[in-house]
């Protein structure tokens, strides 16, 4: 066809291939930010979301919840909301990818001479940037209602870093879920996401739950993440003694959960993307 550009030949050396993979991944990372440019509401969505939750839990339910060893409930609540914000890509990515799969966008990518792994890596990679924005928004709401990090700059940064790492892991879980499920199935699974977040120590201490439920809540990754944030930010509930190992060693538990999720869902998602036939 007239005026068609010359396409650079396929790379042969491993180094060139890696460069192509990174270039493709970066293009797809930028795509997510172009989405934000064309739909700015997405940027402030976490702000509205965490604002509503702070109002609901911090002021409505919180007025009746007492924090173990005292302390401000809203300071107790914020680490839970950070953990919740970090869990959302599992659902958001799954829905977005399942939709693109049904629209044929995934097929188009797979029929092009681009890196096989760029699409899942681009999706999860862009989520780090989106996660930083979401955490900043949530923290802003927290600061407005009296939440503070009390343990100095180093531990504060560590707290946010561990939240982001967990988010990255959840992002991979979402990519796999989206590739493995049909769009309609996900609509039905969606409501299960909230029990996953709620059956944890994110909003209330687990101590008064029935034993069986308490065991589930204590071993929920969300609990370890919440507890890590409480410890690193020095928020109420940080010093409470726990019967469950993940809450006694929340940081190790969070890192362990995250690595496990990345390894399992990362390899499943890449394998699924490269070989998918449906």
């Amino acid at each position, binding site marked *: 066809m007239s005026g*068609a*550009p010359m396409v650079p030949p396929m790379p042969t050396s491993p180094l060139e291939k890696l460069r192509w993979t990174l270039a493709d991944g970066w293009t797809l990372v930028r795509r997510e930010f172009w989405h934000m440019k064309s739909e700015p509401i997405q940027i402030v969505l976490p702000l509205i979301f965490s604002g509503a939750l702070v109002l609901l839990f911090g002021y409505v339910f919180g007025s009746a919840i007492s924090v173990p060893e005292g302390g401000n409930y809203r300071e107790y609540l914020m680490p839970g909301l950070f953990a919740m914000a970090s869990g959302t890509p599992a659902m958001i990515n799954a829905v977005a990818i399942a939709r693109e799969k049904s*629209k044929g966008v995934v097929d188009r990518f797979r029929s092009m001479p681009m890196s096989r792994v760029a699409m899942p890596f681009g999706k999860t990679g862009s989520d780090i940037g989106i996660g930083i924005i979401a955490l900043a928004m949530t923290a802003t709401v927290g600061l407005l209602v009296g939440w503070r990090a009390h343990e100095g700059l180093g531990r504060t940064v560590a707290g946010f870093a561990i939240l982001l790492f967990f988010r990255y892991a959840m992002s991979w879980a979402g990519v796999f879920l989206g590739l493995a499920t049909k769009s309609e199935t996900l609509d039905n699974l969606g409501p299960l996401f909230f029990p996953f977040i709620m059956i944890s120590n994110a909003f209330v201490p687990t101590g008064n739950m029935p034993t069986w439920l308490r065991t589930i809540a204590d071993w929920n990754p969300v609990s370890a993440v919440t507890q890590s944030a409480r410890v690193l930010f020095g928020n109420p509930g940080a010093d409470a003694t726990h019967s469950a190992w993940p809450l006694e060693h929340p940081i190790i538990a969070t890192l362990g959960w995250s690595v496990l999720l990345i390894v399992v869902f990362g390899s499943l998602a890449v394998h699924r993307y490269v070989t998918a036939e449906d």
Partner: protein
Amino acid sequence: MAGSTESDASVVAEGLSKRFGKTEALRGLDLYVAAGTVCGMLGPNGAGKTTTVRILATLIRPDSGYARVAGFDVVRDRGKVRYHIGLAGQYAAVDEKLSGRDNLRMFGRLYHLSDRVARSRADDLLERFDLAEAGGRRVETYSGGMRRRLDLIASLIIAPRVLFLDEPTTGLDPASRNEIWAAVRNLAQEGTTVLLTTQYLDEADQLASQIVVVDRGRTIASDTPDALKAAIGDRLDVVVRDVRELAAAAEVLSRFAGLEARVTPERREASVAHNSGSLAVVDVIRELDRAGLSVENVSLRRPTLDEVFLRLTGNDQPDPPDWRDAPPESNSHADMKAGKP
């Protein structure tokens, strides 16, 4: 027009088979598309058209058989195949949250064009396909026809040697359909090989120089539209003045042709295949007259591609099931079997 040696073929497939669970989607399908031509692939839902395109576009692998596109094996050299193909279909496979221009820019970057080249290519294509004004808007706001055109453009960024169009006009209004047709004709003139699947026989008739009829996972005919029509013979249509006389007219036609005539009461028409001169039009008219039937029109004509198709798939009977609306996969097969005389 290219010759018929295999080296001239842009798409060759031999004995392609593919099974999804219990469904045998392809059962030894053969295909040959000469370079620089438009090939129309016809078949009812579930015949295996989309599966074939997905194999040729390297999205899935055949269970057996082999295929080459632009000279490369679709399994062993799939990386190279992807350099030479474009894929567009009934789903507008573009990012709806991006503008048309940003979509093309993104796909251009994924072909490893520089940002400058990707942008100018996007602008060229938008201009050429009459989307320059809408280029800055999000695809969500586009009409069905505009989306389909953008989808087509997105598969033309690198000027592919072989373009796969999977039901490109399904669900489009006639104006949008004409625009897609014009685009396909242009591409073919510039030397792109096009494999087009369609359920609309007039679409294949309009665009394709070669027709491949597929049914239940196999190729059942492959020729030019004219040759296919010639092969099943002309048709003789009789229109009566009074619909009450239609059955008697059909009876006369059936007797002469030795085949059951097809009756369309809405048009007061009886129609029958005209086989190898066995049916002298003059004799038919005389016989109709003798029976005291009042005839409005008698005409001898080439069959439509619909009639060719129905004959080939064994559905040449008075009231063919409307396979265009048949449910996908096994159901349509059941319909077709039930439809056999």
